[in-house]
């Protein structure tokens, strides 16, 4: 539902998880809200709503971003990947599989953003060191796991898709 005000909705076109999607939205609406409410992709979570926690992390044109800080107009024409776009059919992405196997998810709120931040890292650096994993995930906060299982999962996923992480 679009709130009342002076500004009129405009047409926004995006490629979301490989499919072209067209929505009518107000230009200052947050990309996070458009994904969750208009496109019903509720895998992307809202944590702090101010770019501190990384729960709403998605990939926009291949770059990790916090979708809570993006007015949807700035996403017009963009290629978006959310957590829903990672698995193929019944087959989990290796990062999702590694998170499961390592017990890297507890309450689950940070998990979609955490996984996308980790995928973003391996896209650029297939064999990260522990220090590089920690830096890459430093914008994603988790209040349950204590991070160790998460770092383990990322190292494991790097090993699953490549020759293995360099320690």
């Amino acid at each position, binding site marked *: 539902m*679009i*709130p*009342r*005000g*002076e*500004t009129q909705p405009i047409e926004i076109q995006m490629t979301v998880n490989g499919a072209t999607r067209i929505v009518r939205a*107000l*230009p*200052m*609406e*947050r990309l996070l809200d458009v994904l969750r409410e208009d496109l019903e992709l509720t895998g992307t979570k809202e944590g702090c*709503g*101010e*770019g*501190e926690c*990384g729960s709403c*992390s998605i990939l926009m044109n291949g*770059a*990790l*971003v*916090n979708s*809570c*800080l*993006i*007015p949807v*107009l*700035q996403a*017009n024409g963009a290629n978006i990947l959310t957590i829903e776009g990672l698995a193929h059919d019944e087959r989990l992405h290796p990062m999702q599989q590694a998170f499961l196997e390592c017990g890297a998810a507890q309450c689950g709120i940070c998990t979609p953003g955490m996984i996308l*931040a980790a995928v*973003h890292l391996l896209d650029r650096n297939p064999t990260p060191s522990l220090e590089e994993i920690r*830096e*890459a995930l*430093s*914008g*994603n*906060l988790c209040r349950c796991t204590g991070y160790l299982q998460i770092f383990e999962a990322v190292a494991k996923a790097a090993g699953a898709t490549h020759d293995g992480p360099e320690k």
Partner: protein
Amino acid sequence: MRANPAEYELVAPSSLRDALALMANNPGEWMPIAGGTDVMVLYAAGKLLGRKWVSVLSCPEMRGITVEAAEVRIGAACTYTDLRQHPVVAKEFSLLARSAAWTGGIANQNRGTLGGNIANASPAGDSLPVLLVYDADLILVSARGERRIPYRTFHTGYKKSLLGPDELIQTVCLRREFTNCTAYAKKVGARNAQAISKVFLAGVGRVADGQIESVRLAAGSVGPIPLRLYKTEAVLTSQVANDVTFENAKRILQQEVQPIDDIRSSARYRSVVLASLLREFFDSFGGSQDFVVSMNGILARWSQLSATTAAEEILPCCGSRAWARQMAAQRPFEDVATLLATSDRIWLELSAADWLEAFQSHPRIGETRSHLESSARSQQWSAQEQSLATESPDAVKYALAEGNREYERKFGRIFIICASGKSAAEILENLQRRLKNDDATELHEAAEQQRQIVQIRVKKWLTE
């Protein structure tokens, strides 16, 4: 209270010209937004005052990093990620690349922009002290035209600046003159990612022979704006990097900043930590503070010795007795820089016979014993200086030995080269070139090499 998006307008012009035309219309009505890492936080909290926003991310004139002969020009809408990944920024303006890596997490670095950091004008902006020490210029544009201003004049008060309501920061210009500087930056915060600095210090300086030739300092989170520390710089400039200089600078530094108590830290903590950061920067000046202290200690002790003993002690630095005698006679020295300068002057005025005496105190490159009976200390230093040369393949060692013998046949003395940091291959290349010199030219070339050796040895003597 969540903001209502219907109360806000946002447009994304495809050119800078269109953006500026909009902003010129009724100056102050339309405000610029780039990556949104500051604006959208206020928006989400329902605290965003402006209602009409123009996105500058879509203006290609605001993007890109251009490397010119004299300067690097950074489009104001370049992100922190752009800065981290650019090879020339990383190499020549490493503090900017490093401070970009300390700003937010990866997701915010992918969106936050350098121009946005400047325009937001937070006293805690991590890239801002760095731009101050690099003495950046800003190019500001509006429909009225463009102007270039020194960044150090930009911030005029808390969240106040020279930027007009119809103006945009288009470009940040960095002069390429920092390759031979000591550069320092440190952020002190709860953590690097997603935590705003409690204290930030950046510095660049040039130090030669223990003397601070030039220095620029700037601090974050210790005043209403990012502060260039002119007064502290003045205390340091042209001074020897010793404890006295540091204490003077620290006193002025603590008068020059105006830290406050706030949610992140206390004024007192900030002041104390800032002085520690200055100390850390100071210690990075071509050697640690221990270096400076012990240098002065040895110099003071040496000044008290009899002339004969003093000459004997400094002799292994050079090998020429005339040089050692004259150095002892010139005591006391005000500081290390004066001592080193005096050494050069005396050396260059010596006779050829004195030079030859000094040359003979060295072993041949690749050998361990010198012609003359030289001191244990001189032999130990020779071994250190020639360490790279002795770790070389046998073929190169053999060619060096052959070259040395040929050199001695031709000039009647051993081949002298300042071997510190040179590989055997580099030494061989020099040797083969110098074999073609005539005797007078070669004598002076050898004397210049010995002068460099003496400089290094005097500094070693003062620290060991």
